[in-house]
């Protein structure tokens, strides 16, 4: 099982290269704040972050703070690793999570802190942060309401 205190960011995976459009998302993550990009003109949210609103094509956007809770839209249990360094990590859960307040935007992440067999579509989850380095943290999710010691 993958816990949120156990690093599994693989050494053979390149770190994300942030640019002007995406830096805000990664900076918020580093500060353990879950945000989503929101168009300042029409209010549509989008993820991954990008340079232009896919709905109204306006280029100005803001980072909307999210409460950190959400729902599993769909998930899979990856049982065969595609990077050698993930071979010790399988099985792990990859999920598309709809964060509460995210306007329908979904984030691909992991559900950790429970047995993969417990995960279901519609499961309520909350964010947990994994520090990968001084300027990089990844949001993962765990079943909502678990106590710290339950992981």
């Amino acid at each position, binding site marked *: 099982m993958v816990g949120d205190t156990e690093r599994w960011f693989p050494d053979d995976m390149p770190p994300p290269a942030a640019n002007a459009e995406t830096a805000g998302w990664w900076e918020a993550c580093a500060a353990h704040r879950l945000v989503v990009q929101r168009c300042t003109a029409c209010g549509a949210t989008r993820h991954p972050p990008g340079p232009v609103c896919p709905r109204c094509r306006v280029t100005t956007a803001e980072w909307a703070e999210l409460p950190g809770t959400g729902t599993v*839209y769909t998930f899979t*249990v*990856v049982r065969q690793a595609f990077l050698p360094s993930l071979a010790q990590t399988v099985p792990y859960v*990859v999920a598309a999570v709809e964060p509460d307040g995210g306007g329908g935007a979904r984030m*691909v992440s992991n559900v950790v802190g429970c047995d993969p067999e417990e995960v279901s*579509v519609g499961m309520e989850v909350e964010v947990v942060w994994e520090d990968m380095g001084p300027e990089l943290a990844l949001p993962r999710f765990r079943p909502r309401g678990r106590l710290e010691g339950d992981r």
Partner: protein
Amino acid sequence: MSPARAGRRAVIAGVATSDYPHLPGMSEHAVHAEAAGRALADAGLEYGDVDGFATAGFFPMYAVGVAEYLGLHPTYFDETHAGGASFEVLVEHAAYAVEAGIAEVVLVTYGSVQLSQMGRRLGTGGGGRGGMAPGPAIYDALWGNTLVGSYALAARRHMHEYKTTPEQLASVAVTMRDHAAHNPQAQYRDAITVDDVLSSRLVADPLHKLDCCVISDGGGACVVTTAERAADLRKPAVHILGGAHATTHHMNLSADADLTVSPAAQSGPLAFERAGITPAEVDVAQLYDSFTITVVLTVEDLGFCAKGEGGAFVEDGGLGLGGRLPTNTDGGGLSACHPGMRGMFLIVEAVRQLRGEAGETQVPGARLAVAHGTGGMLSTGATLVLGKEAP
């Protein structure tokens, strides 16, 4: 296809596959050349007749490079990349080109030695340092998502919304294997059962190993020209009645991308409208089967059944000979051959069916066929409607 220029109507005059599924020692270009030579011979044409060329591969100026290798100096070329759907798009474009009169004979080729190059790695979806797609892909890959995982996400959501079962998904693989038994070149030919699929190891829930396509070497080619030019050629022409393609997203899983709907929902109705037929008239289908879920989504989105009824449509031999819609009569990517972008094989098999050349898996009297490619992560779809007779 319309708009046609003064009676010029696009047809497929020649088709071929290369040898497959395992071509140790062959280069990718050699696979192109083998398929191209065979397709031209099938049509009764020669390289000197070719003035247009199209292919798709994984680096820029790919078509230019293959054209050089084949010694072609085409005045029409195209390398539109739509992943597995590329070859349906390229043939659609070629049809427009010959109907517009800007090309006379367009050669479309595909070649891959994925199996020999990469080995039998199932569930690939990234390559490690330096091998990962830039941009949005990172928002999947950092959390360990894989290509199989992406289709698994779609399958899980379809199961949730429509009560589609693992058994129904498995039945797609079973039928493809039944067809592969009649294809001497197929990578796997031994019969399998639904239980065999369900007891094969899970790669990414709910997809088992046997829910996933094989990994092969191989290629194919086809020759697009006009009905007039084809009239005195070696084989009966197959008419390109309609084509359309669409894309909805690349990697993005946001609300705009409904994982239970593929771009076939756009390309299918357009292609049928352009062809002037309805899905109910189709005699035989060649549908991209990267994974079993891909086929379930495609039969729904092309309109062979209602959304959510794909599971019931494909089970109990629904895609078999004599079934609701005989599909992938060569054994498909799930059993016969899948070198990475399988779309060309769909076209070759559709043409063989309409010519009556499909041997033991021939659909009797087949007049109308559909070839539908799917690329990326359910990102692109391209539909070709082919007919034995002129419209």
